[in-house]
C-alpha cells in the first residue's frame, strides 16, 4: 500500500465547536476562539488534558495568536503553531493536523479559526476594510486607482469569464439566490430572508459585475474542529468524519494557459480519496464571491471550463440537484468564518446532523478553501465512512 492510500481514511474529524456567529458584539476573537475549542472538546467527549495539538488561524483582525494555549491552560502540547494562507488555511490546518496524528506526533489536534472584525454601528464592509493597512511605495497607487481589498480583483476575473465564455449576470445571481434558499434551512445563518433573482439584480453594485449580494458576509465568531486517528475517533462521542483525501495548490497569479490551482488541488485530493468528480455526492465550496463557486466547480471537474454558468443556473446545486452545494448557505448567506464555513457544514452533513437541510447522499463530500486572489487553494474529501 502506498503512503497516500495508507493515509486515506486513517484520520477523522471527531469534534466540532461553533460559537455564536455573525453580529455578535462585545467579545474578542481570542474569547471566541477559546469558546470554540472548549465546545469542540465537549462535542467530541474529550477532556482538555487529552488535547495535545493546537493549530490556529487568525482572520483579518489578527485577534488570536499562540497565547491561546495559555488562555486555555494547555500545558503539554506536542503540536502548536499559527498558520496563514488566507481562505485556504482551514483546510490546510486539517491536513497538517491529520499528518500529525497519523504519524503519532499528537493524538488530538484542535484547528481553530476566530475573527471579530464587526463593530456595532459600523458597516460590515467598512469594518472589514478598515483593518487593512495602506501599503507603502508603489502599493499606494492601488487605492488611488480605486482598488480596495480583494473585491475588484475577483469581480474582474468574473467579468473576464463573462467576456471569454459568455457567462451571464443571471448565472452569478443563481448562486446567490441558491445560497439564500439553503440558508433559510439553517438556524445559524445570518441572512434568512427570501431572495429572488429580481432582488439580486436590484441590489447595489460594488464593482460590476458584482452586486453586494455577490460578496460574502462579514462575521464575528470562531469555529474549531478536532482531528484524531480514525480508531481513536470511533471511541468518542460523535460519529467520525473520515478524511479520505487532501490537496493543496498555490500560484502567483491566475494563468489561463496552465491548470488552475483548484484543478491541481482537487486532483490530488480526489486521487487520494480514490474517486472521480462524478462520485462526489455534495460540495461545500469556499464562496467568498458567487464567481468563486462557479470557477471552483469547473476546476474540480463537475463541468467543463467555461460551462460553469449554465451548470450553476440549472438547479444542480439545490436540494434536488445533481450536486447539492453549500447546504448551510455558505459565506454568502450564512456566516463568514473563512475556510471553517465549508468545513463545518461538511462535518454536519457527514454526521447526518443537518436537520431540515440534511442531504441523503453524503458518502463523499468535497470541501474547498481559497485564499488571496486565486493564490492559495486547499481541498478535502470528507466522509462518514472509512475508505472501502
Amino acid at each position, binding site marked *: 500500500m502506498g503512503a497516500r492510500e495508507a493515509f486515506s481514511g486513517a484520520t477523522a474529524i471527531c469534534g466540532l465547536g461553533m460559537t455564536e456567529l455573525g453580529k455578535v458584539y462585545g467579545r474578542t476573537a481570542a474569547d471566541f476562539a477559546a469558546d470554540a475549542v472548549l465546545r469542540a472538546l465537549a462535542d467530541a467527549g474529550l477532556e482538555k488534558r487529552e488535547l495535545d495539538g493546537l493549530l490556529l488561524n487568525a482572520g483579518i483582525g489578527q485577534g488570536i495568536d499562540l497565547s491561546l494555549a495559555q488562555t486555555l491552560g494547555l500545558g503539554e502540547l506536542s503540536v502548536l503553531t499559527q498558520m496563514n494562507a488566507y481562505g485556504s488555511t482551514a483546510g490546510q490546518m486539517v491536513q497538517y493536523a491529520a499528518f500529525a496524528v497519523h504519524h503519532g506526533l499528537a493524538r488530538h489536534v484542535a484547528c481553530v479559526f476566530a475573527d471579530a472584525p464587526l463593530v456595532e454601528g459600523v458597516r460590515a464592509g467598512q469594518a472589514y*476594510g478598515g483593518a487593512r493597512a495602506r501599503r507603502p*511605495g508603489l*502599493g*499606494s497607487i492601488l487605492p488611488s486607482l480605486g482598488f480596495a481589498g480583494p473585491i475588484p480583483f475577483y469581480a474582474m476575473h468574473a467579468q473576464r469569464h463573462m467576456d*471569454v465564455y459568455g457567462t451571464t449576470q443571471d448565472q452569478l445571481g443563481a448562486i446567490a439566490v441558491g445560497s439564500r434558499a439553503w440558508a433559510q434551512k439553517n438556524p445559524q445563518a445570518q441572512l434568512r430572508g427570501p431572495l429572488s433573482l429580481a432582488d439580486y439584480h436590484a441590489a447595489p453594485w460594488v*464593482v460590476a459585475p458584482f452586486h453586494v449580494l455577490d460578496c460574502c458576509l462579514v462575521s464575528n465568531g470562531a469555529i474549531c474542529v478536532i482531528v484524531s486517528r480514525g480508531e481513536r475517533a470511533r471511541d468518542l462521542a460523535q460519529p467520525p468524519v473520515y478524511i479520505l483525501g487532501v490537496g493543496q495548490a498555490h500560484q502567483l497569479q491566475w494563468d489561463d494557459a496552465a491548470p488552475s490551482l483548484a484543478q491541481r488541488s482537487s486532483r490530488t485530493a480526489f486521487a487520494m480519496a480514490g474517486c472521480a468528480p462524478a462520485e462526489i455526492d455534495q460540495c461545500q465550496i469556499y464562496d467568498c464571491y458567487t464567481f468563486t463557486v462557479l470557477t471552483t466547480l469547473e476546476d474540480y471537474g463537475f463541468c467543463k471550463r467555461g460551462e460553469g454558468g449554465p451548470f450553476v443556473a440549472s438547479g444542480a446545486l439545490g436540494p434536488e440537484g445533481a450536486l447539492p452545494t453549500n447546504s448551510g448557505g455558505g459565506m454568502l448567506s450564512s456566516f463568514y468564518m473563512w475556510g471553517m464555513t465549508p468545513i463545518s457544514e461538511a462535518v454536519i452533513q457527514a454526521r447526518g446532523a443537518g436537520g431540515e437541510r440534511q442531504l441523503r447522499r453524503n458518502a463523499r463530500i468535497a470541501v474547498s478553501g481559497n485564499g488571496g486572489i486565486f493564490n492559495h487553494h486547499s481541498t478535502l474529501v470528507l466522509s462518514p465512512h472509512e475508505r472501502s
Partner: protein
Amino acid sequence: MDPSDRAAPYFAAAERGVLALQRCEACGAQTFPLRARCPRCGSTRLGWSESSGRGRVFAHGRLERAALPELAGRLPLTLLLVDLDEGPRIPARLATGETGPLRAGDAVALGFEPAADGTPLPVFRRAPG
C-alpha cells in the same frame, strides 16, 4: 532601503509619462510590482527598463462604490488589469473620456492621469490591433 524609496525611479519615470519596470541585470526578466530580488533567477541586481506601454486587457470591472472620497464624485470608473507586452500584469484604469464596450483581450496603450494628490496613475486607451 525603505520600500517606498525603492519606488522613486518608478514615480520619476511616471512623471515623464513612462512606465518603468524593474529589469533583472542577470537574467533580463522584467517584473512588476517592485521586488528586492528577481523572482525568476533570485539575483538582487535589479535595474530599470521602460515598458512599451502596449498591452492587452486581461480583465476589467466597473467601480461603482469607492473607498476614497476623492473618487466618489467620479463614479463609475473602469478598473483594468492589463497584461503588458513585456509580461507583467498591472492594475490600472481606463483613461478618462474612453467610452464604449471593452472586452478581455482588447489592445490598449498606456498614459498617465494625476490622482487627487498629483500622483501619476497608469491609465490605458484603446489601441489599434
